[in-house]
């Protein structure tokens, strides 16, 4: 409710600024012009939206699989933890626009480099949050399992993994929100389709309204992904009472 009001106020202010303030629509199109572009180019934008969504979802899935494996491996093995932690952290310092062309060069113009770059952007929050969650499991419960002579695997399955779920979902939601950035950079470096490519060509043609329309779609895509992850979290992590009167 509040979110809707804030949005209306922001968009209304923006519209007024452009219409009344005499801003050049080539620099900043009014919201109504963006919506107009979105509607007019809908048949053009739909396949691009689909392509980018596909890349982002696959990349997020790959990052989740890799992040889960890494997080658990780092949790179980101190040697792996020491060996991998600098790499995992360092991976976030790699500027995606710089390596994107290299990845495209090696893997070609297809789907693979996009999925890889999305995964590169996403796997860090997933790995680190999962790892922290595994470590934060109740020490009393772990001691209890040890007193029952539980195996390492049983302790992981019965105590640590469920205890890590809330934290792991936080990582997943962060990843979902930033995933589209990876896809856009990958498409800039070389793609036949996708909202990132729309952005590049629209900028080249000074079709600012269309560029904003594509950005709006990216914005909505990120929110939808985040929402899907939050929904999944509510279904899976159902033992934590939530105090959210009135909904999101």
């Amino acid at each position, binding site marked *: 409710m509040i979110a809707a009001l804030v949005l209306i106020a922001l968009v209304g202010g923006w519209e007024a600024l452009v219409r009344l303030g005499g801003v050049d629509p080539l620099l900043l199109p009014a919201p109504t012009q963006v919506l107009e572009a979105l509607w007019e180019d809908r048949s053009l934008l739909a396949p691009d939206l689909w392509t980018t969504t596909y890349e982002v979802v696959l990349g997020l899935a790959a990052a989740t699989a890799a992040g889960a494996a890494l997080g658990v491996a780092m949790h179980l093995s101190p040697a792996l933890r020491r060996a991998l932690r600098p790499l995992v952290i360092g991976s976030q310092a790699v500027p995606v626009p710089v390596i994107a062309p290299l990845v495209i060069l090696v893997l070609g113009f297809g789907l693979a480099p996009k999925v890889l770059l999305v995964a590169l952007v996403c796997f860090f929050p997933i790995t680190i949050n999962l790892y922290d969650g595994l470590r934060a499991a109740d020490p*009393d419960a772990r*001691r*209890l399992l*040890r*007193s*029952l*002579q*539980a195996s390492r695997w049983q302790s992981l399955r019965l105590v640590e993994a469920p*205890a890590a779920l809330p934290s792991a979902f936080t990582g997943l939601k962060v990843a979902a929100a930033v995933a589209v950035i990876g896809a856009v950079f990958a498409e800039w470096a070389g793609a036949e389709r996708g909202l990132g490519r729309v952005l590049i060509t629209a900028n080249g043609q000074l079709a600012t309204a269309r560029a904003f329309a594509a950005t709006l779609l990216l914005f909505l895509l990120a929110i939808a992904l985040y929402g899907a992850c939050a929904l999944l979290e509510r279904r899976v992590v159902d*033992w934590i009472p939530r105090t959210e009167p009135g909904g999101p």
Partner: protein
Amino acid sequence: MQSEAGVELDAVDKGYGAVQALRGVSLRVAPGEIVALVGPSGCGKSTLLELVCGLGAPDSGTVRAGAAALMPQRDALLPWLTALDNAGLALRVAGVGRAAARVRAHEHFAAFGLEGFEHARPAALSGGMRQRVAFLRTLLAGRPVLCLDEPFGALDALTRLQMQRWLAGALAREPRTVLLVTHDVEEAVLLADRVVLLSPRPGRVVETLDVLLPRPRERDDVAVVELRERALRVLGADDAGALGRELAPAARAGAPARDEAAPGS
């Protein structure tokens, strides 16, 4: 050898770094006996239970004990599991399937006053119910020795009294060898066959009191009150000493004091 179901500690020393938790502790618990360990915060009571449960080895001395099940200080229930699944956790670890563990845990739910709460998560249970689930989990581990670490330390005074009475009944129905760690001298006298009094850190056995009273015991029985006061005197509760200041309020008021001072205690 009695260590099939009993516990034998012989001249046990245990420290953590610079902290000496236990010094020269010798203790014998016969099979089926209930022994209470009473002492001030940080006297190494929890450390002693850990040694009995095989969670650590003594620095010197020997620990021989039958297979022991631990009930940790805080109930350590898993918040994502239902009461039924929490109670059956030890069975699951022992390799029993989920459905079979539920059936076996459920057999005890009526006797434990948990009927109707089978599918409740710990957050929806009262403090007393949580302790009963934790105790059932400990029982279902099927070990001859139970190590109860301040089972009622976190409960309010009234619930605590009810739970002490309930535990006495439960142990009468299902006799086990029990090591009960507590702050509460009265609780020790009500429940145990013997009360072992420990000194402040490093923990040593100061005195052992035999509680040769018939059961069920009431807290206002003259003999119970007498023993309680004697134990408090031994622990120095009447002195203005450090030990007295520390122990007396917790023991008398039944305050939810906990043993958090020492690492591993």
